[in-house]
């Protein structure tokens, strides 16, 4: 879908990035200053590469070798900014339909009604953007971009300016977007949970280059050996919904290695559920523990241990083949006599699972309606 290969230098910042993406959401992940937003600006045509080529589904937007560089308004790229950037002098409806005046009609495949219903913004149409909450504003911004019938939707840290509740409110909408419309999405974020929850393919960036690219598990679950970055190490596991326990407000997922208990309600209609686990939130046990508050106990075996300072990053292959990583102290490894090949139980504290990283999770506010 996206075929990107550009380089550029600005002052001391050298940018040289090449990647290809497939359908669905491509997650562009990396720390601030790694060049994520530059990718967005290059694709949208707001910045010109000093060398390179950008094509979307075979359509060339820029090619320095052939002297091609389409202006932004001819690229057919939808852009969602971190802070919605709705037009303050227009109503929500006028914002939503703004792009329609400039879009050739035959290309139109997305109906106004479909967008309004998927994003749940029907009750806001007559309002002024200035009266909307941050989350509502961002949903309208997404709708506005979609209704211009773009060939690609760029989302530049669309949740970064929102608080956790607003993030949880919007994430299900972005998932519906991905599943119900065929538009490929390039999603930029520095949040592992967001990327792991949404992305089909992940591109990890570092200092203006691509550090890794591939499936979310492979890229995000990659070993982070530096102790200082231990909070960045995550794994994802995929289960299917078994049931929602309304008394206790938790959802229970089936997984070959054992049941996974996560907070909140997951939509029953959904397929596989992906859960992001931080390596620092997983404890290990050499035998199945009794009388412990932890509800999620996953059986597997150790495949590798990498020491760094007082910590040990332990790689585990769960029953069923999925791999996860756990950070524990070297002391614990020694006491439990863990080593590669030995059976192990990974204990996951449900309370420590960030809802942002649970795919299909319904936001508390949208549960009411």
């Amino acid at each position: 879908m996206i075929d990107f290969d550009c380089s550029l230098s600005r002052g001391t910042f050298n940018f040289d990035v090449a990647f290809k993406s497939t359908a669905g959401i491509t997650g562009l992940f990396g720390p601030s200053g790694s060049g994520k937003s530059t990718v967005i600006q290059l694709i949208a045509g707001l910045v010109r590469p000093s060398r390179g080529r950008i094509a979307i589904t075979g359509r060339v937007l820029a090619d320095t070798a052939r002297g091609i560089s389409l202006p932004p308004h001819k690229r057919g790229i939808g852009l969602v900014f971190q802070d919605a950037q709705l037009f303050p002098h227009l109503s929500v409806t006028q914002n939503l339909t703004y792009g329609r005046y400039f879009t050739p009609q035959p290309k139109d495949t997305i109906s106004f009604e479909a967008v309004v219903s998927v994003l749940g913004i029907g009750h806001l149409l007559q309002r002024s953007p200035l009266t909307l909450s941050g989350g509502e504003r961002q949903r309208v911004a997404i709708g506005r971009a979609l209704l211009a019938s773009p060939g690609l939707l760029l989302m530049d840290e669309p949740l970064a300016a929102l608080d956790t509740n607003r993030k949880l409110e919007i994430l299900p909408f972005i998932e519906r977007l991905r599943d119900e419309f065929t538009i490929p999405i390039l999603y930029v974020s520095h949040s592992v949970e967001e990327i792991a929850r949404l992305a089909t393919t992940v591109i990890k960036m570092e200092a203006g280059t691509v550090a890794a690219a591939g499936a979310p598990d492979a890229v995000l679950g990659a070993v982070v050996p530096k102790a200082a970055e231990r909070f960045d190490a995550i794994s994802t596991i995929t289960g299917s919904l078994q049931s929602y326990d309304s008394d206790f407000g938790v959802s229970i997922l089936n997984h070959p290695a054992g049941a996974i208990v996560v907070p909140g309600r997951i939509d029953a209609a959904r397929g596989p559920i992906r859960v992001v686990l931080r390596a620092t939130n997983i404890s290990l046990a050499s035998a199945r523990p009794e009388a412990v508050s932890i509800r999620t106990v996953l059986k597997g075996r150790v495949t590798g241990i990498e020491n760094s300072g007082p910590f040990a990053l332990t790689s585990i292959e769960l029953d069923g083949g999925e791999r996860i990583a756990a950070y524990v102290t070297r002391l614990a490894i020694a006491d439990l006599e863990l080593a590669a090949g030995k059976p192990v139980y990974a204990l996951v504290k449900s309370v420590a699972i960030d809802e942002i990283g649970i795919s299909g999770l319904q936001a508390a506010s949208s549960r009411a309606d």
Partner: protein
Amino acid sequence: MLTLQPDDWVAIRLSLKVAATATLFSLPLGIAVAFALARGRFYGRTMLDGIVHLPLVLPPVVIGYLLLIHFGRQGVFGAFLEANLGLVFSFRWTGAALACAVMGFPLLVQPIRLTMESIDVRLEQAASTLGASPVWVFFTITLPLSLPGIVAGAVLCFAKALGEFGATITFVSNIPGETQTIPSAVHTYISSPDGDAGAIRLSLVSLILAFAALLASQLIVRRFTRAKSGGA
């Protein structure tokens, strides 16, 4: 004593006509120059900025003299405009309007430019990614969002035009019914032995008009800001 005389009314009507003409005709150019200064990146931008502000610091009599030698019937532009458009400035009310337009131009441009500079460039970028060409972006986003500045600038320019004296009298003299605006009429009253009452009358009119214009601009700007921040 304070009853306005027929001659006073002539001066007031002429002043309003001159000021309105000056403002209306300089508005499109003012918006274009403000946009160029706010968003443009071109060689000579600082120069343009300087030229626009020149009337603020140059003696009005010098502006008037420059207009006289360039836009008088013998002047380069004056002769050209008369020959091609039949437009004569010297000793006509149109000349008074031209002088007022030049003098009011910096006051017109500055508020528009400031409002345009305060518009987030990303709003314009958003519009362009939605398919709007630069011209459409200007007319659907930049221009409507600059409206408070445009109104403020127009009102300031109008008020300045009502009070312009030096450049006007130098360029088109002081002809009752043709180029004698309120300030020129006040000047004539002051210069005549028993003109005090007339000078006071027209000075009061000037005061009221200027104050009304400033008040109107304040109210309009406040109304826009309230509408922008979401209403009551």
